[in-house]
């Protein structure tokens, strides 16, 4: 046991004690404000946004601006990773699996697409949403790359297309937000700006939320698959 180790263990121990003490202390006067904000969301959220999934309602309507921000974070991550990846020289990379795997993957891909888009489009009705759907779509590319390999010469174009999609998704998000301003309200306005909210529980409802979900889904799917491609390329 070196001094450093003892010191760091002691420090970690102290930190743990401090955390627990803090939590205990914070538990004492917990409900003096009664969380009126969350009460409001629970009671009024569905009327306000016509989105059954309250988390989506908060994510894309009440706090849509945060979502724009977090989408930007992924955007930047994909941008920097693709920027720093070296242009690879190898032309074809693939693994040898049994034919069963190839068949199964080919079979599964359309369903994955359907599942991904289902998650995106039903984001305001059921658990899911743009992020989850986007991740599912990204897994399609991951699966395909792992099983069938990738032809580098074609990949350049694919990457370029994906990056275009990503940018389009981000720009689309902002533009949908701007629609609220066009109709005389604030950025990212939804129900107040008079967009068709429809009836809670229907697919076409909740104004801009499904569209924002779609944009986010496209964006996340593209970004994550870019990140994956670049990481794979770096590892080789």
């Amino acid at each position, binding site marked *: 046991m070196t001094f*450093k180790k003892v010191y*760091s263990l002691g*420090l*970690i121990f102290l*930190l743990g004690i*401090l955390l627990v003490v803090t939590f205990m202390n914070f538990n004492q006067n917990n409900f003096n404000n009664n969380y009126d904000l969350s009460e409001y969301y629970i009671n009024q959220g569905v009327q306000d946004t016509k989105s059954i999934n309250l988390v989506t309602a908060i994510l894309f309507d009440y706090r849509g601006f945060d979502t724009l921000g977090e989408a930007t974070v992924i955007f930047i991550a994909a941008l920097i990773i693709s920027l720093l990846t070296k242009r690879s020289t190898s032309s074809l990379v693939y693994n040898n699996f049994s034919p069963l795997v190839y068949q199964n993957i080919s079979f599964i891909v359309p369903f994955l697409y359907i599942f991904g888009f289902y998650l995106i489009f039903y984001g305001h009705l059921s658990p899911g949403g743009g992020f989850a759907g986007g991740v599912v779509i990204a897994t399609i590319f991951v699966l395909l790359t792992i099983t069938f390999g990738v032809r580098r010469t074609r990949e350049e174009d694919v990457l370029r297309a994906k990056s275009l999609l990503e940018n389009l998704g981000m720009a689309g998000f902002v533009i949908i937000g701007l629609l609220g301003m066009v109709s005389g309200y604030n950025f990212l306005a939804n129900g107040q700006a008079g967009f068709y909210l429809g009836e809670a529980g229907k697919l076409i409802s909740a104004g801009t939320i499904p569209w924002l979900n779609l944009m986010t889904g496209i964006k996340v799917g593209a970004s994550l698959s870019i990140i994956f491609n670049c990481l794979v390329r770096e590892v080789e």
Partner: protein
Amino acid sequence: MINPGIIYLIASIILYMSKEEWRKYFALITAVSTGIILFALPQGQYLQLPFLDFEMILLEVTAVNRFIGFIFVFFSIAAVIYGINLFSRKDYCLTYFYIGSSLAIIFVGDFFSFYICWELMTISSYFLIFNNQKPVTRETSYYYFVMHLVGAISLLWGILLHYSAVGTMALTTVKVGLPFFILAVAIKLAFIGFHTWLPKTYAETPFYISVILSAYTTKVGVYSFYKLLGSRQYLAYAGIVTAVIGVLLALSQTKVRKLLSYHIISQIGYMIVGLSVGTAIGKKGGLLHLANNILYKGLLFMIIGAVIYSTKGEEDLINLGSLFKKLPYTTVYVIIAAVSIAGIPFFNGHISKLLLKKGTNDPILVWGMYIAAIGTSLSFLKILYFGFFKSAEQEIETKQRPTKGMLVGMGLLAAACLIIGLRPQLLLQILGGVKKEVNYFSLHYLWVGLQPTLLAAILLKLAYQWVKPQPHKSHPFDLYKLLGRGFNYFGSKLSQWHNGNLQRYILWILTALVLLWGQALI
């Protein structure tokens, strides 16, 4: 109405941009016309400028600063003539900046602009000293700048304390934060103990630069001593210590410019004595001594510059000798300068030393001055004898003659020495004159003036072996270098802790977190 220093500051910019052939004429015209403007300036406060939340008084004319301003401008004319063909563009620009800031400092009327000019002076003199050819000078200029900045910061701190206690920025004798002001002034005027920058810098810059430097930096220090610290008896003792030790240090030097540099320190001691004893005559004596010192010390620096110029860099008394044959004009000037500084009657040094003596009553101070005067005479006899009259063991070659500009410049100063020596009232009337009770040329005073020199001559004869310039190694103890080394050691230890290990850095973060969090709990 404009602060004469600002004319110089503006001129320095124009000098930077002007053409080669016009530059020297412009420089001369500026200096002369500033002298005329200065002559026309009546006393009182003139130029005010609002800045931050107070008024900057850019021009405040009193008898004293007019007096010093005259000497400064006069010396700048002589120095420019002296170096008229030697200065490069950079030299002209920086010299004028330097002179301008020193002049401005004399005339400003509030602490803030005082500080700004003080710093401008430090900066410009740093770049003036900064000489890219010689690595030694680079180190010296570094030392110079750091030391002067310590002084300046100390001054700034003093000003801030003074300001927050008094509430006005007007330049007066300080009441709060005296130690900081003393430190600042002490570094500027090279008190013994804070003097280490002076011999280093003055002896190693090009000779025409050291001529300029010798006149201004320390004298501005003396002016600020007069302005800020007022008369305090204990400072007079510090002054006498400076005078005696300075002259002793000077005696042990063989390089002429080093000797002269230590002499500046010693002469500053006289001025401090005069300014701190608190009598009117003493004060006037101190100020007159300041003026005289600029004149004859500048002249001496010019002379040794001429020697360096004609022998291509020789200034060691061990090697010099029998220069009177080769440089006859220069020899005349050096005699004038030496007798002036030694206080021989009919030369200006006599007048100011006499006034100083009249002003002091304390026997310690009187005797101290007497010893310092003997030392002074001795060291200049040394220069005269070993440099100019004693035949050298190895004949020294003079490769080129001093230029006309040099001779004219030196001549101006020598003439000034003589005129002041004969008619001191000409200069003293600017200060308001001295009552007639001092008869400078009475037999008694003539004898008093001659005494030290005679004693010095006897000493030279008796202790010839000891006085004779001989090669010796000196290892001056330098506290400030030691301090710097300690600071460096501390820093390198800190630097070693940053060993690039991420986990160590995170440990620091957690330590900070736990410490802060823990203190919140307690």
